[in-house]
């Protein structure tokens, strides 16, 4: 299955993280969109045929959980991977709406593997 060119939206309030993910994911051959907060993210999801969303939870304003519920409410089939520095959000029922949950790490191997996995699943 060809993942190259798939459109990935990275939602994170920290610019350093956005830029790091952008660089790493472009190297993997994805097209990358960036959003600094939930409202920007929802706008992009409305306009672009996004294939996968990587979503931070703790953000100023609307948090990632709420943004995710709204995304599922609009286009129920975009895979969403929560990417938070906090593992404990995993216990929240609300976070179970996500397709996967990856705790933030400087090494993006796990995240990249999960992205591949979700994109493959979406194609089945």
């Amino acid at each position, binding site marked *: 299955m060809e993942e190259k060119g798939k459109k990935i939206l990275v939602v994170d309030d920290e610019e350093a993280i956005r830029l790091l993910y952008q660089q790493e994911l472009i190297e993997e051959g994805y097209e990358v969109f960036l959003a600094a907060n939930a409202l920007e993210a929802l706008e992009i999801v409305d306009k672009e045929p996004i294939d996968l969303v990587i979503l931070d939870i703790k953000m100023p304003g609307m948090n990632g959980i*709420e943004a995710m*519920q*709204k995304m*599922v*409410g*609009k286009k*129920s*089939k975009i895979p969403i991977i929560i990417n938070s520095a906090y593992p404990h959000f995993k216990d*929240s*029922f*609300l976070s*179970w*709406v996500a397709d996967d949950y990856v705790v933030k790490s400087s090494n993006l191997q796990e995240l990249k593997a999960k992205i591949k996995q979700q994109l493959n699943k979406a194609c089945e």
Partner: protein
Amino acid sequence: MEKLLTLIMAGGRGERLYPLTKEKAKPAVTFGGIYKIIDFTLSNCLHSGIRRIYLLTQYSNASLDRHIRLSWNIFNRELDEFIDNIPPQKMNVDWWYRGTADSIYQNINILERERPQLVLILSGDHIYKMDYRKMLEFHRLQQGELTVACVEIQREKARQMGVLEINEEFRIVGFQEKPASPCSVPWDHSKSLVSMGVYVFKTECLVREVIDDAKRDSEHDFGKNIIPRMIKKRRVFAYHFRNNGGKESSYWRDVGSLDSYYEANMELLKENPEFNLYDLDWPVRTYQEQAPPAKIVLSGKNKELGRGVIINSLVSNGCLILGGKINRSILSPLVRVEKNAQVENSIIMRGVTIGEYARIRNAIIDEEVQIPARYTIGYNLEEDRKKFTVTESGVVVVPQGVILD
């Protein structure tokens, strides 16, 4: 004891009960003269010690909300007891409840806040007496993830229901929704086990399943979608609701259609009905407005003399039977039956007046309808069909707000 939360599904449109649901939600439709359909499920909760209840409502929910406030304002919030009415909040979606499973999905935040270990899911439109504690105990013993309450009925009647196939441990191995050929129980080929729409879920399992379902093309229905998928991969058991010598009988009726509603009402009129309203150990609670006692009198003189006679009927407070004859009927409060009128095999709702010499049979007359003198209903179905709804079994339903002359 695990922390339990109870959710009552009361959000259906009630199309099969139309026109009784023209101005009210199905669970707020009157049953047995003075009750509302929801009172039976809530009374079960009351007698089962269940005090934390959310009612998931949707269409015409004002009628239901008002009834709950009037009659069920008996729980104490300070003791964490409540009955809360939850219409769709549409916080994160643009649609109403798309099905029973979706109504849970849209309220996951409630489960997150309450964090119960078990969730009891009930329907707001069934007539039965059930102590849910016995089912919860069964669920615990089986260490199930889902337990579905079921009742044994004649196989040919199971075609309109969700039919369970079980193994010897009562584990559900098959689930057919409205099957043409329902499977029978292992011990009797003429009987089938059907789902009562009463479920006990382990909360985590419920949340996982409704989320998974929300992302699928599905009717978002427990019977059609969630249970058939779950029996393949999870521990799903059937709780056999039956006469076990206590207060419960295996009586259970879904009153979601006009014919089943009519029939269940008429069953109350038997000398020894299976559902006993007069059991003071299991009273069905409701709201009763202030009204004078029912009064039955002779009226008129000589040839015009009307004898007020009532046989095999339920007559509520405030009824005035002024020389009319009532046979095998249910009269809600404040019904007035004039001289020499006849009412037979009928359900007459609150505030109806039946004029002199009018003849009504096999009918449901909804609230406040004025039947003119000498009017007939139920004697010529061809004529009745031109004006009213007539059910498959020939019951004429006269809707609220109709003007007859």
